[in-house]
């Protein structure tokens, strides 16, 4: 089952995310996540209401737009039985017995558009072209559902869908561009005010500031700051990341560190 990445062409420049920090998308997907304590997730067959966006005639489609409140959409609890919680939780500590008595119901993710282990793109069509935003949302929901109800992997029913089917510009348009707008806006505001401040304090105009090394350094620091520090927590995260990156190396070098000069202990 090889997954072809043929449809995916890498973006011309990587989006403005730092690759080693797991990305927390602080965008429109967020309200989607804060669901009730039961952890019931939103999906499956009967919809609370059909979305206007989805032109497809299927009446059973779940709402695809994310803007509406997530709370209203909790249509029904998932069909599954929570296996891990309800199985004979170590009732007899011995795992010597086979699986027979443990779980009765095997849950599977079901959706009318999920066919044969992948999303049927024809079901997502809007104006004759697939609505990629809807595909992304559907897949996000499926994965969230699977977090709570892990499925057994089976050879008869393989999963084929992989995110590279979705074209790169769909991702850009929806996730990169708004963020880029935000960051550029911040940078512009900082730039404008700093220029004004420096000009009023020193009388050096914009063009002369750009020729000055110190000012260029400040500019660099502000750009890096805007890119890396987007939320209050980011400062702490960056420090921890630096620590983590060097930790393993420190463990390796520990054996060399302990040498007290001049003594060879037996």
């Amino acid at each position, binding site marked *: 089952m090889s997954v072809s990445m043929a449809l995916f062409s*890498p973006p011309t420049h*990587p989006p403005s995310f730092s*690759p080693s920090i797991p990305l927390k998308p602080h965008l429109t997907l967020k309200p989607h996540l804060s669901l009730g304590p039961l952890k019931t997730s939103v999906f499956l067959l009967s919809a609370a209401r059909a979305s206007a966006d989805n032109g497809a005639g299927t009446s059973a489609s779940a709402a695809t737009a994310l803007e509406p409140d997530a709370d209203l959409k909790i249509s029904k609890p998932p069909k599954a039985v929570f296996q*891990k919680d309800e199985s004979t939780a170590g009732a007899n500590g011995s795992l010597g017995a086979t699986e027979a008595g443990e779980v009765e119901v095997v849950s599977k993710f079901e959706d009318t558009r999920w066919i044969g282990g992948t999303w049927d793109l024809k079901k997502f069509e809007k104006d004759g072209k697939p609505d990629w935003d809807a595909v992304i949302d559907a897949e996000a929901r499926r*994965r969230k559902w699977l977090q709570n109800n892990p499925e057994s992997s*089976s050879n008869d029913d393989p999963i084929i869908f992989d995110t590279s089917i979705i074209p790169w510009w769909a991702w850009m348009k929806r996730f990169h561009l708004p963020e880029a707008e935000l960051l550029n806006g911040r940078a512009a505001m900082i730039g404008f005010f700093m220029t004004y401040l420096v000009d009023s304090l020193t009388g050096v105009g914009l063009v002369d500031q750009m020729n000055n090394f110190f000012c260029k350094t400040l500019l660099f620091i502000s750009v890096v700051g805007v890119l890396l520090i987007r939320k209050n927590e980011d400062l702490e995260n960056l420090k921890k990341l630096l620590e983590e990156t060097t930790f393993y190396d420190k463990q390796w070098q520990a054996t060399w560190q302990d040498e007290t000069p001049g003594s060879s202990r*037996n």
Partner: protein
Amino acid sequence: MATVTHPLHTTTFKLPLPLRTEISHPHTLSIKASLSTNAPLPGRKLRAAVIGAGPAGSSAAEALASGGVETFLFERSPPTAAKPCGGAIPLCMLHEFDIPSHLIDRQVTQMRIISPSNLAVDFGKTLRANEFIAMLRREVLDSFLRSRAESRGANLVSGLVTDIEVPNTSSTAPYVVHYTANNSRHALSVDVVVGADGANSRVAKSIKAGNYACAIAFQERIKLPDEKMAYYENMAEMYVGNDVSPDFYAWVFPKCDHVAVGTGTVRAKQDIKAYQRGIRERVKPKIAGGKVIKVEAHPIPEHPRPIRVRGRVALVGDAAGYVTKCSGEGIYFAAKSGRMCGEGIVKASEGGDRMIEEKDLKREYLKAWDAKYISTFRFMDLLQRVFYGSNAAREALVELCGDEYVQRMTFDSYLYKRLAEGDRWEDVKMVCNTIGSLTRCNIVGS
């Protein structure tokens, strides 16, 4: 003018040997190069004790005995004791350690990695006809290595080592190994100790080497009905996901006539049974009808101990903590470190004729080892941190593994333990794909 004298026999000198310069009197500079500044042993050979006769200990003992050092190899378990272990070894180990092919139970040519959303990717398209991952039974491999060490001249002692007395003052006082054999206590004085006694190393405790964080690996051996076993004929599976392990992977590895289904974790050891249930659930259709024949667990070190060499005691293998992150591979590194340590001792002692010191061990063994493998270990640590952190990252990992270039690089690095020759342009593409996959999966994984 300078004169160079070689007081000892004429062998070629290699770089790391210590050189001494002395100014004998103001007008001439004479440089004496001696093979070693260590004291020659009067009328006897250097005596070494290797504690633990697994891959690390046996390789060390073999190197020591072949080099002329009087070696005692201690082992507490009978040769048939089965160790809980994946049992997979790379091709380079078969070549470097001359492992005969009749010991191999299975040649795995297909590896399947399955993401949290059950996206499955097959690794193995890029393998050449003679490439495979060898699966062996540990007891078979260990006994073979042990008897080979014995045939090279190591003295095998079946006994449990209870304590190592470390001399604290003089630099030539021997180490005393206390052990119990045949229900009686014995003691043996040796010059050098090689600790190859695994994750709960007693030698490490005696030299106060410090502790390390351990992962726990838990597995069940399950005998499958024949038609289900046929699926695993030469296929091994790796499962990732929060339901099977929060910071490692779960596996189904085929063994001689059954499969081993297991998982591991570092930070959630008390929940290991829940994770085991998780992996059983995930594999359910493929192991339905199987019978559990054995349950076993073992700690796996996560990083090297703070001290790996102290005095004339060196730690090798699991005792030292040479297990890669991300894949948890330890057999090859154990055997290789044992061999490098043994060879280092032989070289520093010139075939057992001279006493050695801590700095010899550090130079010949530790430095050489670190120089050779630290980047491998660092890279695996990076992979683990990036890709095992969350379900989204794991999905990205599986997606990336679908790429042929990634597969080829991975297998080359694993099978031959060398940085494979890569195409620069493909590397750049791979990095872009990595970033792309991670970004997309993080978005979709919300």
